[in-house]
């Protein structure tokens, strides 16, 4: 269970999140939904300890997110940011970058199939494949880490309609993961178990 309790956050005196609370049971999916600047990404960063709230607390599996527990908390989390520029040229380098062990590499190959990616893409240079294909390879690599909670920022931003469908089926419909995402994609948001709507005001 992930509990967000009365969280407020401000950047240089500008209030971004005001007294936000919600409970996310294990295995449920939630989408933080709202316009740009409504604090969706900030809420994800708070879960990972990249932002510290002005007030309130976050508890993940009965462990409070603070400077003493943060490493233990992060072991439970996997994170896919939006438009990340990875210093890798191909899949092999991506696997090395994430230190995937043999079991995780086997997971990776399974996710590649489930995400309907052609295995021949794996031997290609990232410059030769599309942004959407590269994003799905990165998603497969992060999923293969086998962590119980997956955080995603705008997961569908570089994907076409078919790829969005296969991602929804794989991650939101057919997995035990707790998926927490920030998105303004209506189709993606509607496929979640829960939606937390955030307003700019």
């Amino acid at each position, binding site marked *: 269970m992930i509990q967000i309790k009365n969280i407020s956050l401000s950047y240089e005196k500008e209030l971004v999140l005001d007294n936000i609370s919600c409970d996310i049971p294990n295995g449920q999916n939630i989408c933080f939904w709202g316009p740009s600047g409504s604090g969706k990404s900030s809420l994800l960063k708070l879960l990972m*300890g990249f932002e510290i709230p002005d007030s309130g607390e976050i508890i993940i599996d009965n462990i409070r997110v603070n400077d003493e527990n943060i490493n233990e908390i*992060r072991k439970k989390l996997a*994170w896919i940011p939006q438009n*990340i520029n990875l210093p890798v040229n191909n899949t092999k380098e991506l696997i090395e970058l994430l230190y995937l062990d043999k079991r995780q590499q086997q997971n990776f190959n399974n996710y590649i199939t489930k995400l309907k990616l052609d295995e021949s893409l794996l031997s290609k240079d990232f410059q030769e494949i599309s942004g959407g294909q590269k994003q799905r390879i990165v998603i497969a690599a992060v999923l293969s*880490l086998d962590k119980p909670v997956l955080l995603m920022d705008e997961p569908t931003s570089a994907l076409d309609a078919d790829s969005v469908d296969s991602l929804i089926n794989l991650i939101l419909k057919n997995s035990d993961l707790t998926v927490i995402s920030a998105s303004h994609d209506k189709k993606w948001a509607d496929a979640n178990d829960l939606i937390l709507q955030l307003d700019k005001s």
Partner: protein
Amino acid sequence: MKAIANIDTIHLIIGYSILIIPLIIFWYFKIKLTKTTLIAVARMSVQLFLVAIYLEYIFKLNNAYINILWVLVMIGVGVSTTIKRASLKLKYFILPLILALFSSLVLIDAFFLGIVLKLEYVFEARYFIPISGMILGNAMNYNIVGLNSYFEGLVKEENLYYFLLVNTNENKNALLPFIGKSIKKALSPLIGTMTVMGLIALPGMMTGQILGGSPPATAIKYQILIAVAIFSGGSLNLTLSIIFSNLFVFDKYGRLNRRILRK
């Protein structure tokens, strides 16, 4: 072997006149480097003349405390220059970089002066000061390139650092791409120089020793050792600088202080 030919004042001035070539190039291509170059040459000349006068006394006195003090001054100047030229803020880096440079120098000096050269008195001015100076000067240059690449990279690619921090569970794994890039960028020029040393370039120290009357075989051995000492000292100093600085620029959550760079 004949003693080295002395350079009298007139010929020293004639020697300076060759600078007309780069100055004409700057003027012709409208490159704004003339003032900086003239200031650099003037500074170099004054500093070296002062050092020559100073070293005369230091060599005569050959006192360990004075020699160590001289090297400590070099460390202080080297660190403040590094911080300034790597566009970093003094308050975050002064302590870690002094610690890194001091530790690297103690180790490399002790190894080369004590074990390799087998000096009975390791603070012997004519070895301790020039060899420390060469290691320090080079270590400073590698640190300017390496630290700038590392910290600027972390600030610019913060997303990558956080991506790796969460997904790989280890702070070390998250920093490895940045550390690797920084060390490669800093040390590659020296690796390149060592690769062609003796073929297309005769290093200054070796040339100086030969001009000073040393047999080429001795000069070459010193040159090899000093190149190895510079490389080892530079890589150790950069690595320690990164490790020690990390203690000051990340908080307990592993978040980078984004205000470490000078604008």
